[in-house]
């Protein structure tokens, strides 16, 4: 039985819906650029970070949620007024954050397995 729940969403609306359906849960959200038919993201840092983050999922606390969110296509992301930037205050992809807390790792920080594990295992 999995310790945590993984859910995948696409776009801001789906993200908000997934969060609102899981109130009170410890949600770790990972934001990545969209992927093409071959499963490759337009965001090279996201391509690099994803295996690192996935490699640490076993350390997620029991009962938590791993929310994998594809933010959209490159032009959407580049628009400084997109909802992720405006409302969630994201500054870059990939971003790994603990929803409702100031804990987050941005871009190159996501390449570091020890930082990812630290976020998953410490309070």
């Amino acid at each position, binding site marked *: 039985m999995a310790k945590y729940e993984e859910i995948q969403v696409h776009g801001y609306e789906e993200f908000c819906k997934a969060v609102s359906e899981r109130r009170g849960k410890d949600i770790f959200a990972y934001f990545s650029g969209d992927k093409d038919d071959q499963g490759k993201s337009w965001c090279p840092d996201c391509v690099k970070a994803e295996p690192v983050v996935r490699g640490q999922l076993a350390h997620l606390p029991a009962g938590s949620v791993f929310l994998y969110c594809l933010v959209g296509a490159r032009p959407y992301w580049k628009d400084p007024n997109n909802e992720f930037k405006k409302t969630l205050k994201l500054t870059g992809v990939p971003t790994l954050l603990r929803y409702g*807390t*100031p*804990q*987050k*790792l941005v871009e190159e*920080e996501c390449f*570091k397995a*020890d*930082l990812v594990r*630290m976020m998953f295992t*410490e309070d």
Partner: protein
Amino acid sequence: QPSWDKKWPFWTMSNLQREVQCLPRGLCRTAWGLGGTCVNVGCIPKKLMHQAALLGVAMDDAGKFGWSIPGPVSHDWSTLAQAVQNYVKSLNWGHRVQLQNRKVKYFNTRGSLLDRHTVRGLDAKGTEMTLTARNIVIATGGRPRYPTHVPGAREFGITSDDLFWLKESPGKTCVSRLLIWLPGSVLLVFRHVVVHLCSSDLFRSSQSWLVVGASYVGLECAGLLAGIGLDASVMVRSVALRGFDQQMARLVTGHMEACGTRFHWGCVPTSIEKLPSGLLQVKWTEVRSDLERVEREDTFSSVLWAIGEREVGRERWGEEVAVDKMGRVPETTGLNLPQVGVQLHPDTGKIVVATDERTTVSNVYAIGDVAEGRPELTPTAVKAGKLLARRLAGQSNQLMDYHSVPTTVFTPLEYGCVGLSEESAESRYGKDNIEVYHAFYKPLEFTIAERDASHCYVKVVCDRAGVQRVLGLHFTGPSAGEVIQGFAVSVRCGLTYAQLRDTVGIHPTCAEELTKIHITKRSGLDATVTGC
């Protein structure tokens, strides 16, 4: 992007290729993240809340500058508190990431010394571990003190540790809580009752704060509470801002009094009780003279302890009294220090250190508020730590210089200073051997705002002889910290009065008044600045 390196000496150590491990001390009522007093319950939340109060004043002034603000302006504590607490937590996280990035091992355990090279750690689950180290640095800081000889002090009063983490408005009244659950029709009748109560003493005192202590912590807290619209009183045993220039201290408190903060001078609390209404009844003694004491009492919604310097075993009111130690309590209990030979100061309980921060055990060091004789300030602790790290890594011999440390009190009228107070200079050099230049000035921004500037003042204390070296610089006014910072650099470089007078002022600013002062106290002339 704030530079995390300002907070932790440990990153310096890891940069210098030494293995470093970090154990934060045990926690109290609120759980803290990394960053110590400054980040969690000190400078950072304080300054942000002080800013909230300043914005209130700005909104008062705005009308005169042409802004139209529809309706009465009110302050919501929960909004402020949440924003401040979120920011503090983001700093905690930032520090955690930085420690990790710089390869500092972090153990979230309560540490104590087993011997001079061995530290025992106990985590929240009770798991023990031991670490050995060549060098140990103690930076556990201090905590606010409760006057345990005052019945009810701990049960009913709070400290600055708690103030910044309150989620609910500290001004919430029992009456207002009732209004929330009453059905509409009853509410209509009740409203009449509420309006009547609003004008009564009951309502007024049920929104009021009593701050006991006129240290900078007490005055800053009282100031920000008053600034967001709450009723605040300050109880002072003897003087405000002990250790600071007393003329400047009187200007600071004078301004607060002029703004409506009530000061109870010469008073000491004797007890606190909670009434059935939920209000706190505080009893105190007003000491008018050695022979005349008056017992007083009043009710408040909250009491905040911010008691300052200590009096050890002194005679009080004509009788020998065992006086509890006042001032912030150094966090040394449970560290097992005396047992391993680390000496604590008999009066303060702080760790005795030498000029190189070394304790009485040669490989154990102490920095910051926990160390005896050090200023209780963030920047001195941080710098001392960095320099210590460099010395331990064999990269430098430089010692921390604790002279001419500038500081600022963030009261409603801010007070910034560097160097000696006028009384210290007098006692060190003799009154005839110092020259004190001074001026009362009016910040331009106060003019059309019609704000009272009578406590805005600058004072430069100089050696009277020769080049008239500047011994101390004092300033009350807006942005006092920003004003004084640059002058602190010049004082360290041996600033003289002539150099000060030869510097062209930036116009129009408050800081330029420091370059224009020319009236001496000795002359007895009116020191009020006139004209442009």
